[in-house]
């Protein structure tokens, strides 16, 4: 187990280091002087020189990379040029929107997908299976931002139950804040739920044909207990893997969904930073998202090594 853990950790660390080189290099190839690009054509030479110094643009590329990466490790993300505040403050503030959004979406997606997958697998080949998998097939094809527009039209414009966009802040109370996050979370969750339901069903169908399921049935165990106790538990590995991958999709999905709902989250921050050429914010937030994806994948890898001892020895 220790060897497995060490190998996984080393791979994650190498991936993270390589990712930081890629992010750094990508912004290096922005045409023109980044400080000039950020400040616009009307900025004075002094302003440009000041920003160049702040961004550490004066040394060679290797020196600059080491300086930047070193700062990142000590959680010093620099100062946003457009917002004039430390990037770490911006990130913390925006995470208070994006993290709950992604988590609610993940919870919704799981809460929809697992029962649907279970239902379809247990009714395999029957009408219920065909209908629920047909719906899942459709769900996979729906772009989340279009689904978001439909939800806004239905729940905000027509029924007037929920706000069409914006975020009152957690200071306004938990319920108003949750209400503002509900439609965006649903929009993010549906296509993911459709994928997860298909994976759950397919994993369950595989497991249900195993001998131990027949044994459990033969000794008279109720179908519900066979399904939840034996089948679902054994089908969880592919399901958890997909959930881990989906977290990355959810994070990226917030970029579009937060724009649809005008939510002041990390996704909107990065999109605005890109359009405003606030490269310091772009670098930091991209690195943060990439680090999150790597960390989640690592946790998923480790979690199924805990579930399935065979995977440990194979490492």
């Amino acid at each position, binding site marked *: 187990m220790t060897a497995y853990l060490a190998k996984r950790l080393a*791979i994650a660390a190498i*991936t993270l280091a390589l990712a930081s080189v890629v992010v750094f290099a990508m912004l290096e190839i922005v045409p023109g002087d980044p400080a000039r690009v950020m400040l616009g054509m009307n900025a004075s030479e002094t302003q440009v020189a000041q920003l160049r110094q702040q961004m550490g643009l004066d040394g060679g590329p290797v020196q600059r990379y080491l300086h930047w990466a070193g700062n990142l490790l000590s959680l010093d993300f620099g100062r946003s040029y457009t917002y004039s505040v430390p990037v770490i403050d911006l990130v913390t503030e925006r995470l208070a929107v994006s993290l709950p959004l992604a988590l609610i979406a993940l919870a919704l997606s799981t809460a929809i997908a697992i029962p649907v997958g279970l239902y379809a697998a247990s009714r395999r080949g029957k009408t219920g299976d065909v209908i629920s998998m047909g719906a899942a*097939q459709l769900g996979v094809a729906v772009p989340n931002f279009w689904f978001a*527009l439909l939800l806004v039209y239905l729940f905000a414009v027509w029924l007037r139950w929920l706000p069409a966009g914006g975020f009152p802040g957690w200071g306004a109370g938990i319920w108003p804040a949750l209400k503002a996050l509900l439609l965006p979370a649903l929009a993010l969750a549906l296509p993911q739920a459709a994928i997860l339901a298909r994976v759950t069903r397919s994993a369950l169908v*595989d497991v249900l044909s195993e001998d131990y399921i027949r044994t459990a049935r033969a000794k008279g165990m109720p179908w519900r207990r066979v399904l939840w106790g034996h089948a679902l538990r054994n089908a969880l590995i592919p399901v958890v893997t997909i959930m881990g991958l989906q977290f990355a999709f959810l994070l*990226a999905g917030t*970029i*579009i969904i937060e724009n649809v709902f005008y939510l002041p989250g990390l996704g909107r921050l990065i999109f605005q930073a890109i359009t405003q050429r606030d490269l310091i914010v772009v670098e930091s937030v991209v690195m943060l998202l990439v680090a999150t994806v790597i960390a989640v*994948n690592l946790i998923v890898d480790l979690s199924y090594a805990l579930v399935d001892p065979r995977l440990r020895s194979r490492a």
Partner: protein
Amino acid sequence: MKALANRSLLAGCLITGLVALMALVSFLWTPYDVTKLVVADRTQAPSLIHWFGTDHFGRDIASMIMVGARNSIAVALVAVGIGMGIGVPLGLFAAARGGLADEALMRLNDLVFAFPALLSAIMITAIFGPGAINAIIAIGIFNVPVFARVARAGALSVWPREFILAARAAGKSQTLITVEHILPNIANQLLVQGTIQFALGILAEAGLSYLGLGAQPPMPSWGRMLFDAQTRMTVAPWMALFPGMAIVITVLGLNLLGDGIADLLDPKSRRRR
């Protein structure tokens, strides 16, 4: 069950064929000129004159969807081409060589998968400027590791087989074996993955053009049409309804096609569906 598999193949072929036909016809004919603004006709509801209504500039939405199909298909198709063209040789090479080359490829895969595709596509288009070409490159890059992975996994399962051993005994080189024996044996898997990536490409292109980073106006694109519709949902909901349905139908068609091909070629996958 075979009939069911064929049904999904049939439906997939039919839908995909119709969308492709619509895109091709748009080169020769559209009900209205999509570049012509007719302010007097703006935000008209669907009618016999304008089947899907008109947008805020009085442009015919049905015509815009036809021309938009061209853009979506072209971007997704070329992006799949890039992914296959680079990814498949990489995957085949890694499988043939093994060792360090294989390990390096897998780490490269980990690296690309650490970047959520949409995030990187947004970064690429933001750095090099918005436009269809950059959208293609951005989506294409993220197809590379996907095809590399599928090609590698497929090739690894073919290499230990007896006919490969025979080919090696006959003195054929690794490259020749890869081209003559491995590639034809994994072509089916690549085809299935191709339709999946094609569908994902359509969704990614729509997302990018929704954010204003895909094809630029006056070229109509489905994502851009949805962006324009967003602030007009109360007065002209059809502006959002039809382009969205076009995306859903196209992606659904491609997914059905992929499922159908997979079922046809691999009886084991049929059991799971």
